[in-house]
């Protein structure tokens, strides 16, 4: 233990813990909606498109994160414009994804500056984060969490019931595009921590694990954040003890939590889960033929 605490005097480890924690919090929180909105493939695509943005930026001698943000935000707006029709959307995303990934390979082939960088973009390099990157990560992370907090309720409504949300005055499409932009920014910052290929471990796995445990939206989101943060911390500790890359350990821990939950906890809809949550099943009452005497009054009514 002393050994671990002592390591904290090293800048690179402090940076790793800070950036890793911030990314885990944002990715865990956004992940709740990625799973709820069935956007796993879009998230996957954004990460790969980010790879091309990153390599393109390095080729042109620009800032890597800036390049990723530019590419992924543009892609996010495009994906958002496709709307919510899952099937057509995924085909369109896949088509653009293939082309943009090809573009990334072109960038890699055209420059020698990328030597070695490509691997760290793909798989992350948590132990090589600069103080400047920590600041960028913190600013973008705080911004994402703030915006998510501001659009949380309309986004939840638009995610579970877009038809009714629209009639209630929720700008469904706008909220959806706003969320994808947040996702793009988060994918871009998390590249340093786990890389574009492994971002799923923080963006999808913790949220999927949490949604198996509870149907309470706030609790599910919080659990998702906890799982993501635990994955990063445990991954870092393991990487200090064993000389393997932290990205591997982070994905491994995240996966282990998922497996454990799948193994121990029946899914929410299954009969076992239902009876265990409600020990005495009350008989279902028929709809009453009259409404309660005291009616709620709306501010408009």
């Amino acid at each position, binding site marked *: 233990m002393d050994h671990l605490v002592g390591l904290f005097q090293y800048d690179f480890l402090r940076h790793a813990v800070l950036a890793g924690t911030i990314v885990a919090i944002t990715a865990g929180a956004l992940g709740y909606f990625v799973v*709820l909105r069935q956007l796993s493939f879009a998230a996957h695509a954004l990460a790969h498109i980010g790879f091309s943005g990153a390599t393109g930026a390095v080729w042109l001698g620009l800032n890597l994160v800036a390049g990723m943000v530019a590419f992924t935000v543009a892609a996010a707006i495009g994906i958002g414009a496709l709307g919510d029709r899952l099937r057509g959307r995924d085909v369109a995303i896949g088509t653009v994804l293939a082309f943009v990934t090809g573009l990334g390979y072109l960038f890699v082939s055209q420059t020698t500056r990328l030597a070695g960088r490509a691997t760290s973009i793909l798989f992350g390099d948590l132990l090589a984060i600069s103080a400047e990157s920590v600041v960028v990560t913190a600013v973008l992370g705080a911004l994402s969490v703030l915006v998510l*907090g*501001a*659009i*949380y*309720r*309309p986004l*939840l*409504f638009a995610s*579970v*019931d877009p*038809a*009714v*949300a*629209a*009639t*209630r*005055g*929720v700008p469904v499409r706008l909220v959806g595009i706003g969320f994808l932009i947040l996702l793009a920014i988060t994918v871009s910052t998390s590249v340093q921590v786990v890389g574009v290929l492994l971002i799923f471990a923080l963006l999808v796995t913790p949220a999927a694990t949490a*949604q*198996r445990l*509870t*149907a*309470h*939206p*706030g609790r*599910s989101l919080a659990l998702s954040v906890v799982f993501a943060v635990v994955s990063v911390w445990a991954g870092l500790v393991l990487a200090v003890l064993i000389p393997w890359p932290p990205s591997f350990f982070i994905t491994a821990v995240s996966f282990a939590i998922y497996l454990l939950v799948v193994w121990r906890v029946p*899914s*929410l*809809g299954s009969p076992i889960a*239902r009876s265990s*949550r409600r020990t005495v099943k*009350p008989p*279902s*009452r*028929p*709809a*009453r*033929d*009259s*409404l*309660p005497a*005291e*009616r*709620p*009054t*709306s501010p*408009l*009514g």
Partner: protein
Amino acid sequence: MTAPAVRFADVAVTFGRRTIWREATFTIPRGAFCALIGPSGSGKTTLLRIILGELRPSVGRVEVLGAPPRRGNRAIGLVPQRGVLLDDLAIRARDLVMLGLNGHRWGFGGGNADDRRRVERALDAVGLLDYADEPVGTLSGGQQQRLFIAQALLDRLELLLLDEPFANLDVKNEHEIVALCRSVHREQGATIVVVTHDLNPVLNVIDHVVYVLDGRPREGSIDEVLTTETLSRLYGTPVQALRAADGSMFIR
């Protein structure tokens, strides 16, 4: 005199080059219990979307509760046409209903104690209080329909629109939905418009009919529309309107 619930004056809807329907002129009076019928694809859902202000008609004038239609009007409730919800949708029944109350407001959090009481009252009114903490995907089709009605019941409704609420329901569930609509109709004095391909569940409660025939929505009184001839033209196949000894009607 209060304005009618819905008034259409020579309205037409065109998507691209296709005219869905035209020359729609009809009125749904306040407090009516109205059925909206017509063949599949005749534009019934489109008509509801115009009432909700989601779609602007290409031609004509529309008035809803005495004003031009606008989105987000909380005096109007909608129970939309749909299949069942995703069975792995991880959100509780009470959360879904709560969203009807505060889901349009920016920000974070699930509502205060007063909001929670209102949600529980609405759940109780549709007989789903015992299921408040169940994930919505695990509820049956009929329970889900009742849940959407509970969501619509949160505000003081003046107009309740239901799009095919009886799809996939058995007779018992049909009865429960109709009973709920009747109590909203009676106790809140709300106007009810129900789109349905099967008239039988509502045959003895409706007092008004709007029907889309030959690309034209029109209104009619019960006695005009619920005849063997009109219904046969409407459904495009011979049907019979029968009156039982006790005065109640059914169609087959």
